[in-house]
C-alpha cells in the first residue's frame, strides 16, 4: 500500500500491512528531518506535493518494485506539510521470506522515490529565512 498523509508517521501503524506468516524479515526506513543541510541550519521543513501525480508515481514505484521483487510486501508513505526536527517525512516498509530481498527492495524504493516523486522541501532556517531545496541555492 502507499499513501500521502499529513499525519505524524509511526512505523507501528503500518507494520500489519507487511506482516505475513511466511515472511521472516521486515526492513523499515524512516527519513527524518535533520538539523543541517549543505552547511545551513534547519529547524523544520515544509513538504509540498503535487498530490495527483505523486500518487500516480507511487503506484508506478510499487509496480516496478513488485515486478523486481515479486514475493515481497511493501508500504510507502510520505508525509506532507510542516515536519518538525526529528519527525519522519517518509516511512518505507518491506517484508519477505529472507532479509536480502527486504533490504534490497527497501533501498530500491527509496532510490525511486528520490527520482520520481514530485515532492519539494522548503527548509525553514533558525533565522526565519526559507529556501527551496535543490534549486537556486
Amino acid at each position, binding site marked *: 500500500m502507499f499513501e500521502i498523509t499529513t499525519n505524524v508517521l509511526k512505523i507501528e501503524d503500518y507494520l500489519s500491512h507487511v506482516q505475513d506468516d511466511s515472511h521472516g524479515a521486515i526492513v523499515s526506513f524512516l527519513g527524518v528531518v535533520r538539523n543541517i543541510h549543505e552547511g545551513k541550519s534547519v529547524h523544520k521543513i515544509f513538504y509540498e506535493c503535487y498530490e495527483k501525480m505523486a500518487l500516480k508515481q507511487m503506484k508506478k514505484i510499487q509496480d516496478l518494485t513488485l515486478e523486481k521483487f515479486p514475493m515481497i510486501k511493501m508500504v510507502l508513505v510520505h508525509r506532507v506539510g510542516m515536519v518538525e526536527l526529528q519527525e519522519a517525512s517518509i516511512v518505507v516498509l518491506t517484508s519477505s521470506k529472507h532479509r536480502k530481498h527486504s533490504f534490497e527492495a527497501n533501498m530500491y524504493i*527509496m532510490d525511486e*522515490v528520490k527520482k*520520481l516523486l*514530485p515532492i519539494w522541501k522548503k527548509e525553514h532556517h533558525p533565522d526565519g529565512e526559507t529556501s527551496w531545496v535543490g534549486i537556486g541555492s
Partner: protein
Amino acid sequence: MKIQIEYFAIYRDLLGISSEELEVSDGLSIKELFLQKTDALMDRDELLESTVFAVNSDYEDCDYILKEGDEIVFIPPVSGG
C-alpha cells in the same frame, strides 16, 4: 486550444500564482510554453536546466507538443524522502 498549468514550489513563489487556464496555439512544445511563462524571470536558463516537465501526471520530454486539455506542471528538482 486550452490547457491548464499548475504551479508548485519555487514556480508558484516566483510567478505568484498557483494555476491558470491558458489558450495556446497548435504545435507549441512544452519547452516553448515554459520559456513564454518564465520570460521575465532572472536565471531563466538555470531554471530551465534543472526543470523537467509533467503532462497529466506523467513525466514528458521538453519537446512534447501540447494537446487540448493537458494539465502541465513545471517540475523543479524533486526532493522527496
